[in-house]
């Protein structure tokens, strides 16, 4: 039925105190920006959507992805990608291995390697496959984190203050790249941010919490 990401009557509370309430549908290719000061429960909302809500919180409501109810599905089977403010590239793996970790299983060694190389080329990082992620610049790390997530073929994208660690010039650039890629693939995007500029750049609906 409905394509896109639906949060149906989601309510999250901590020790009985209500924190977040949201009832929204995000169509494919659209961005919903959730704004509000820190500590208001924006990241908690995302952890409910990824299925990693810490036990101190209780939540009601459903998460539907392309009409499929994923509320009780294990996090790794939800097909929902997420980007945090830190790149979180795995420090023990090379750039190429990080991407191969994200790439869905299947295909020969060479085919997989070719896909990784093509994905790197797509974001102007040809030949970076054997690099140590710790030696990359902030903008390069952000791009690797983005394509690692895209290689896992997600059906929706979550952004948890994803651009707040980048300096102003880089920020606009990475932000445009992320939104462009999400539109290309028709992904519904749920973004939490405390920066009005992020929301303006996203161009979609804005919800303010707190």
């Amino acid at each position, binding site marked *: 039925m409905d394509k896109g990401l639906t949060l149906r009557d989601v309510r999250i509370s901590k020790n009985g105190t209500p924190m977040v309430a949201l009832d929204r549908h995000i169509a494919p290719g659209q961005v919903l920006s959730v704004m509000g000061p820190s500590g208001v429960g924006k990241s908690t909302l995302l*952890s409910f959507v990824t299925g990693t809500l810490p036990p101190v919180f209780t939540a009601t409501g459903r998460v539907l992805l392309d009409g499929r109810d994923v509320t009780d599905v*294990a996090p790794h089977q939800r097909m929902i*990608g*997420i980007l945090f403010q*830190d790149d979180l590239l795995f420090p*023990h793996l090379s750039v190429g291995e990080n991407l191969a*970790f994200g790439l869905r299983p299947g295909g020969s060694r060479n085919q997989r390697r070719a896909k990784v190389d093509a994905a790197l080329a797509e974001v102007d990082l040809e030949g970076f496959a054997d690099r140590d992620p710790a030696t990359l610049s902030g903008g390069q790390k952000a791009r690797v984190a983005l394509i690692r997530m895209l290689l896992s073929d997600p059906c929706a994208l979550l952004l948890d203050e994803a651009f707040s660690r980048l300096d102003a010039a880089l920020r606009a650039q990475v932000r445009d790249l992320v939104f462009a890629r999400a539109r290309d693939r028709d992904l519904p995007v749920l973004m939490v941010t405390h920066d009005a500029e992020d929301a303006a750049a996203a161009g979609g609906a804005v919800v303010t919490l707190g």
Partner: protein
Amino acid sequence: MPGRIVTRRRLLPVLPALTLVAMLGPVVAGLYGTVLPAFGHLPAAGLTGPSLEAMRGLFDWPGLPRAVTLSLTTGITTTAIALAIVMGLVAGWSGTAAFRVLERALSPLLSVPHAAAAFGLAFLIAPSGWVARATSPWLTGWDRPPDLLIVQDTWGLTMTAGLVIKEIPFLLLMTLAALGQTDAVRARTIAASLGYGRVTGWLKCVFPRVYAQIRLPVYVVLAYGMSVVDVAVILGPNTPPPLSVQIVRWMGEPDFAARLLANAGALLQLALVIAALGVWRLAERIVAWAGRRWIVAGRRFCGDRTIAAAALGLSATAAFAIAGGIAVLVVWSFAGFWGFPDAMPDALTLKNWMRHAAGLGDALTQTAVIAISVTAAALVLTIGCLEAEHRHGLRMTRRGMWLLYLPLIIPQTAFLPGLQTLLLNAGADTGRAPVMLAHLVFVLPYVYLSLADPFRAWDVRNATVAAALGASPDRVLWRVRLPILLRPLLTATAIGLSVSVGQYLPTLLIGGGRVSTLTTEAVALASGGDRRAIATYGLMQTAAALVPFALALGIPALIWRNRKGLQHG
């Protein structure tokens, strides 16, 4: 696929319970096995209690008052001195270059087994030791060893010194771990800006918080000092020996009456440790009350320089005593004829090593098989517990921490005799497998304590990202979490191995004297006085504990040499 997940869910939450059983089962069983014979119930010998025969026998032993006094004085003095030195050191020097040097020496000093450190100290300060040789005859005028009772002195002073030098690195490590959680740097800065001296400011602002964190390790030191056997055999007085040594002697005698005495003694040992912990707790209250008055009085300096200098001097002395002890063991192990007062032997030879090669080889194999199996089991249980905590939120409470420390606080001499008696009554053979289970009791807490903090400190957003990329919880554990945590994993492994290598009493009692490790062989040589044999076994024991630490440092550096993000983790 869903079926598999269900079985995993069933297996993983069982591990914390299994860990508790492995850790506390033998302790509880051992205490039970001690109480029965202590009150005259030993069916294997045709004795059915309850009777007060054994207790009466114990209190009739003429050596008892002295043995009890020794147990109390060595335990309490060791703890007080080691704690004072470590607190003074951290107060006066943390954050300085001198402190970083000591910090670097910490791991190797910590991993030197107690027995080897005790032998080293004996070889240094005995009348014919290295210190006397180096200063004779030009300074002392001695051309033969003076007739002084330094090692095994009646008051247990040398034994206390031997314990202090080994407990300083332990308490220092625990303090450093605690400092990270106490906001110490900022507290010290505030105190300094209010005009407080380095040491006074630290003692008034940081010490109360740090002590709350290291209280359980301090109790471990106290209980250990009161009931240690191997160090007491090597450095402690003989007639009478401390209570713990006498218990082991009784256990070694063939007749049943002595066994009853041993179990009665074990019960008394437990009571003594509990009483000492009570006294210590009371002293904590008094110090807290006095400290509060001292804090509000507002004095900015209190012998800061003196305290700092004394603490640094004493800890450096302790470090040199361990390092020098190992050095003198090395010299003795290669020594040909070495007359007094020569500072070095006439000739260096490989003969000692060749003479003991076969025995050393056998003992090393036995030691390694036990240590590796036990550490592997401890790692599986620990990782299982921590992963269950991560996946299912089965978090350990404050009471859980107590359980973790319980096997380290209840004296070994209190429950191991009972455990041996139980095993014999049940017809179970003593031997290697029971020894491994007994080692696990002591290895598990240390492996858990060393791994738990880094495991929990790991950024769980890594797991969220990996799961969002489609990785199952098992894949996250094996492919992401454990590789990133390689360094703390290997450190925990090294700690586990060195704890197992150093175990004396469990190996001796539960092995029924038939499981010979480097430690039991080395301690057995103590009474013989063959310095060359002692040196080879002591060094081998040290190497068995030290080499894993070197590997734990070297392996991650090698594997992650091209991974900048993991080089200083």
